[in-house]
C-alpha cells in the first residue's frame, strides 16, 4: 500500500458486536481511488439486491480519500449507504474534523453493518473498538449528544458523528451531524444510522498520515494554495460563503419562492450576505485543513429568537427555508435551520417538505392543525411542522416525515403536481426553468434531485463560456455533453475526497501532483474524468439493480406544467420534447441504450465490467 492511504477498512457488525479489519484491495485503490469510488463499489458488492435500507445488511459507510487528513487544502469525507428516501445510491459529503480522524485512527473507511438490540454508540480509539450503551443519549439532539460523549470519554478532542431525534424516529431525510455541526445532510443517512440504533460514532486516532515525497508534496500544496488565492470564486466564498448566491439566484430567476411557484423573491437580500452579515455574522470558520474559511459564524442577538449561536445560513437552507416558505426574516430562518441541525434533519428536504405542506394547506389538501395556519410566510407553522416531523408525534408529522413524494401520494388528488422532488429527493434550491442543462442535471444526478453532481446554472444564466463557446440558457443542444463532463470530473475528484469549493480554484493538474507526491505513484490530470465516468456507470448499474425506473429521469411536474411567473426567464417551462431531447442525447453520450441502461460495451470500456467483487471476511 502506498503512503497517504492507511491500507485498511474497519468493519463493525452491530448484531454480533464484533469488529475486524480488511485490507483495501490493490485493484480497488487503482481503479476507484477512494471516497465515492470505494463507496459505490462496496455498496454494490456488500448488499443483496433489493435490500431494505433499514435492514441490517445495508451498510453505513464513512469513506475518506488519499488526501484526507494531509495538508492538501480543502478535503472532506463522505457517507455512503442505500438511501431510505430514494431507495438508491446515496453519497453525502461533509467537512469539519471527523474524516481526518478516521485516518489517524488507522483506517481508510468505516463500514458498519447489522443492527444493535438497543441504543449504542461506537467508540473507536485507534485499534480499540467498543460498542457502548447509549440509552442515556437516546432522545438528545445531535449537538447535545456530541457534548455528552466528550464528557463521558473525558476528552474534548474526540471527533464525533451523531444523529438527533429525527434519525432515531426514522424521518427519511435525517442527517448525520459531523464534528462539528457539519452535516452529511441529504438522502437520509441519519435514518439508516437510527435504524441500527447507533446514536453516534466517536473516534480518536494517534497515527499519522504519511507522504512519499514531502518536498514535492509541499510544493504541490503551495501551488494549490496559490490557485485558491487567485480564484475569484474562492475569494467570494471567503467573503460571504454561499450566502451571496441568494441575490444571484433571485436576479436570474432561479430562486425557489413559495414552493417553487416563483423564481424571484422581493426580499431576497434580507436572506443573502447582505442580511446575514448585518444580523448574524461575527467571525469566519474553516473546516480542517482549509484556507478558504467559507463558514461565517455568528449569533442571533436580538428579536424573538435571540440567544443562540448560528453558522452561516447556507444558500440552500436560506432559499429553501426562507424564500421557498415566503419567510424574509433571516433570524427566523437561522432559528428554523438550527432546529433542523439539532433535531438532525436535512434543512434542504425539510424546507421542501414544509413548502409542500404550506401549499397543500393553502389549496385545501391539508386541514390546518389547531392554532396553526398552514400558509406561506408563517414562521410559527414552519416551526410546528419541524417539531411534528422530528418527533413524528402527530398524523401530519408522520406523513411529512416520509418526504414530499410519499406525502403527495398519501394526500392523493393532484398533490403530486406541487411535490418538488426528483426520484424522491427533494429539489435543491435552483428552480431550473430558465436553465435547461440544470434541469438535465437534476434529472440525471445519481442520488436524485441534487445540485452537486454538476451544476450548469451559473454558466447558463450568465452567458458564460463552455469550451470556447457561449452557453445559451434555454438551449438544449450541447447541454448533455457539458453536463456529462461536469459530472465525470466531480465524481472523479469526489474520490479524493475534495470540497467543491476548493475545486473552484485547484486545478486537475495540481490534484494529480498532490496525489503523485503523496503516494509515489504517478497520477494525471485526465484520470479524474475517466474515474468519474467509471463511477457514474457503477452507480447507474447499482440504481438500476435496486429498481430505479429510467422514466424517473425527469423533473417535478411544476417545472413542466407551470410557466415561470417572473424574472429574466419569465414564461418559460420545460417542454416534454426538450426533456426527451436532452435525455436521449445524454444516454447516447454516456453509452447507455435508449432505455437508460449502460451497454455491456460501455461497462467494459469504462472499466466496470471486469472489476472483481469485494468480499467481506465475516458474515
Amino acid at each position, binding site marked *: 500500500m502506498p503512503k497517504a492511504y492507511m491500507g485498511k477498512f474497519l468493519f463493525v457488525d452491530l448484531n454480533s458486536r464484533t469488529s475486524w479489519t480488511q485490507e483495501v484491495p490493490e485493484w480497488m485503490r487503482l481503479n476507484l481511488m477512494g471516497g465515492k469510488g470505494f463507496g459505490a463499489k462496496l455498496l454494490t458488492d456488500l448488499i443483496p439486491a433489493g435490500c431494505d435500507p433499514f435492514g441490517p445488511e445495508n451498510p453505513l459507510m464513512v469513506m475518506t480519500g488519499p488526501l484526507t487528513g*494531509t495538508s492538501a487544502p480543502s478535503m472532506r469525507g463522505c457517507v455512503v449507504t442505500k438511501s431510505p428516501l430514494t431507495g438508491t445510491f446515496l453519497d453525502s459529503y461533509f467537512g469539519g474534523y471527523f474524516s481526518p480522524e478516521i485516518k489517524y485512527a488507522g483506517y481508510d473507511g468505516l463500514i458498519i453493518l447489522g443492527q444493535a438490540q438497543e441504543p449504542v454508540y461506537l467508540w473507536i480509539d485507534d485499534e480499540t473498538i467498543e460498542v457502548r450503551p447509549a440509552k442515556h443519549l437516546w432522545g438528545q439532539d445531535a449537538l447535545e449528544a456530541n457534548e455528552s460523549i466528550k464528557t463521558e470519554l473525558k476528552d474534548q478532542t474526540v471527533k464525533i458523528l451523531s444523529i438527533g431525534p429525527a434519525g432515531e424516529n426514522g424521518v427519511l431525510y435525517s442527517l448525520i451531524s459531523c464534528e*462539528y455541526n457539519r452535516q452529511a445532510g441529504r438522502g437520509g443517512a441519519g435514518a439508516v444510522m437510527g435504524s441500527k440504533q447507533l446514536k453516534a460514532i466517536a473516534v480518536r*486516532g494517534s497515527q499519522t498520515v504519511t*507522504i512519499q515525497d*514531502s518536498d514535492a508534496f509541499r510544493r504541490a500544496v503551495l501551488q494549490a494554495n496559490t490557485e485558491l488565492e487567485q480564484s475569484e470564486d474562492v475569494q467570494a466564498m471567503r467573503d460571504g460563503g454561499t450566502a451571496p448566491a441568494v441575490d444571484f439566484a433571485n436576479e436570474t430567476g432561479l430562486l425557489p419562492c413559495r414552493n417553487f411557484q416563483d423564481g424571484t423573491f422581493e426580499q431576497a437580500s434580507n436572506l443573502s450576505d447582505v442580511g446575514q452579515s448585518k444580523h448574524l455574522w461575527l467571525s*469566519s470558520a*474553516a473546516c480542517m485543513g482549509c484556507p478558504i474559511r467559507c463558514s461565517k459564524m455568528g449569533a442571533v442577538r436580538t428579536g424573538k429568537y435571540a440567544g443562540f449561536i448560528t453558522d452561516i445560513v447556507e444558500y440552500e437552507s436560506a432559499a429553501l427555508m426562507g424564500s421557498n416558505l415566503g419567510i424574509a426574516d433571516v433570524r427566523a430562518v437561522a432559528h428554523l435551520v438550527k432546529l433542523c441541525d439539532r433535531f438532525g434533519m436535512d434543512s434542504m428536504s425539510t424546507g421542501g417538505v414544509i413548502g409542500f405542506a404550506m401549499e397543500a394547506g393553502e389549496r385545501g389538501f391539508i386541514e390546518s392543525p389547531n392554532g396553526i395556519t398552514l400558509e406561506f410566510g408563517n414562521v410559527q407553522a414552519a416551526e410546528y411542522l419541524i417539531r411534528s416531523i422530528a418527533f413524528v408525534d402527530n398524523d401530519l408529522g408522520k406523513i411529512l416525515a416520509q418526504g414530499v413524494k410519499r406525502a403527495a401520494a398519501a394526500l392523493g388528488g393532484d398533490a403530486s403536481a406541487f411535490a418538488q422532488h426528483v426520484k424522491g429527493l427533494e429539489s435543491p434550491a435552483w428552480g431550473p426553468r430558465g436553465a435547461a442543462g440544470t434541469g438535465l442535471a437534476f434529472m440525471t444526478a445519481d442520488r436524485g434531485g441534487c445540485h452537486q453532481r454538476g451544476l450548469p446554472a451559473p454558466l447558463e444564466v450568465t452567458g458564460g463560456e463552455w469550451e470556447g463557446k457561449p452557453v445559451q440558457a434555454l438551449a438544449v443542444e450541447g447541454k448533455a455533453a457539458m453536463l456529462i463532463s461536469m459530472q465525470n470530473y466531480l465524481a472523479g475528484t469526489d474520490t479524493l475526497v475534495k470540497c467543491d469549493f476548493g475545486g473552484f480554484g485547484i486545478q486537475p493538474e495540481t490534484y494529480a501532483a498532490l496525489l503523485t507526491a503523496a503516494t509515489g505513484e504517478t497520477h494525471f490530470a485526465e484520470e479524474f474524468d475517466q474515474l468519474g465516468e467509471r463511477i457514474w456507470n457503477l452507480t447507474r448499474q447499482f440504481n438500476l439493480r435496486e429498481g430505479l425506473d429510467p422514466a424517473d429521469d425527469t423533473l417535478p411536474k411544476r417545472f413542466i406544467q407551470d410557466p415561470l411567473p417572473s424574472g429574466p426567464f419569465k414564461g418559460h417551462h420545460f417542454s416534454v420534447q426538450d426533456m426527451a431531447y436532452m435525455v436521449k442525447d445524454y444516454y447516447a453520450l454516456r453509452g447507455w441504450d435508449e432505455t437508460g441502461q449502460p451497454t455491456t460495451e460501455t461497462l467494459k470500456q469504462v472499466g466496470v465490467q471486469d472489476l472483481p467483487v469485494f468480499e467481506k471476511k465475516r458474515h
Partner: protein
Amino acid sequence: MPQTLQASQGLRLIAHFDLCTGCEICQLVCSERLCGGFNPRLAALRIEHKRENLVHEPILCEQCQNPFCQNVCPVQAIGPDEGTGARVIDPDTCIGCGLCAKYCPRQVIAYNKQTGKSVKCDLCNGDPLCVRACPTGALELIVQGGEHA
C-alpha cells in the same frame, strides 16, 4: 526570514485568536515536521474550538521563563537554544519518558513514536512553519522583552 535572538529573553509565538479560523493547518504542518506525518494531535501547538466554533483559541508553547518541561526533565535534555532562546529538546539526550509532556502547563508537547523521543516547539530555528502556513496571520513570532509603547 529567520529571526535571531535580539533580547535576553528570546523569541516566542503569540496568537491573535480573533483571526484564527480553527483550520488546524498550523498543527498539520507542525506534526509533519516533528513526527514525520500528519496528525494535529502530534503538533507542538493546538487549537481549542469553543462556543460551537464561534471562537478558536490557539494554545502555543510560550517558551516559558519558568519552564516546567525543562525543570521536570530527569536527564537535562531541555535547554535554551543559542539562536532563538527557545527551550529545545536535545534528541540525543532525551529518553522519551514523557514527563515534560505530562507537566507542560499548556499541554503542547508531543511524542514521536518512530524515534521514541518527546518533541516540542523549537520555533523552527527562527522561521516557524506554523506562522508561514497560517492563512490569516493569526500567529506571530515576536521578540520577548522588546520595546513596548
